[in-house]
């Protein structure tokens, strides 16, 4: 995948598949400490303890009939190839937390990419999932909540193209202001 916003989209799709009502996407960039942290948390159905190890390695079950996904191993690989760490923890019936850290300045660290487009893609996918996006970069931060926007617009869902196109522009602008 070309950039981190695509990984974030992919990992968040897992949360929607898991029936999450809430997804939190938290990004923390600290260029002084030279670290980038991406956390994606959900309150979906969770993952069995014995599955957790399995899903982190795409080769483990390549010979069984079960189709093993690529999303988690890809993201893990992206972090670990940048002197970073990856972790996934989950509790059945409570939710799942995915956390990846990267050395911010690492030569192989992929660019952030278009987060606004990722958020729009998630809103289009998720009927009943609320998304919280929190992005901190050095001293500045930005928060976006689908719940707030629905309340403000007095609508039940945000799946409307013209609305999402406007939202995309504004979110893009806000995120660029963190630079």
């Amino acid at each position: 995948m070309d950039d981190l916003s695509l990984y974030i989209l992919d990992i968040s799709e897992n949360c929607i598949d898991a029936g999450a009502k809430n997804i939190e996407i938290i990004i923390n960039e600290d260029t002084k400490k030279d670290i980038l942290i991406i956390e994606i948390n959900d309150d979906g159905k969770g993952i069995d303890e014995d599955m957790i190890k399995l899903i982190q390695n795409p080769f483990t079950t390549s010979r069984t009939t079960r189709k093993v996904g690529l999303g988690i191993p890809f993201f893990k690989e992206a972090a670990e190839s940048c002197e970073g760490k990856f972790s996934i923890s989950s509790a059945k019936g409570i939710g799942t937390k995915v956390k990846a850290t990267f050395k911010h300045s690492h030569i192989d660290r992929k660019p952030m990419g278009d987060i606004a487009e990722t958020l729009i893609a998630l809103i289009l996918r998720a009927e009943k999932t609320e998304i919280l996006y929190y992005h901190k970069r050095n001293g500045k931060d930005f928060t976006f909540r689908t719940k707030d926007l629905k309340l403000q617009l007095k609508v039940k869902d945000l799946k409307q193209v013209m609305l999402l196109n406007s939202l995309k522009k504004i979110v893009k602008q806000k995120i660029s202001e963190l630079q």
Partner: protein
Amino acid sequence: MAKLKIEDLEKITEEFKRKMTLREGAGRVKITVHLGTCGIAAGARKIMNSFMEEIEKSKATDIIMTTSGCAGLCSREPMATVEVIGNAPIKYVDLTIDKVKIIFDKHVMKGAFVQEYALSVGSEKIQ
């Protein structure tokens, strides 16, 4: 904490009201872009984005845009399904932005499906 401020929300609200005169008009066409891992890696989000731009340009208000998970045909990604309500959904494969423009113009707007880019006529579940 820098949130989407009230002004920002108001700006969106205004645009929303201006553009969305009729939301109740039930969908005439439904476009679904498949965003599984393989789709995303193959550029499906860009495909979603260009469908959204085409919708905006056309000013049509009866097109439903949505995204879904993996369509099960990783080698033919990016993929999208176009369903003119009342007709069988058409699955388009190996999409590019140029193909999106043609599909949008011919199929979404004029109802004539573009056979050369299509996989098969039938339900999304047929793979």
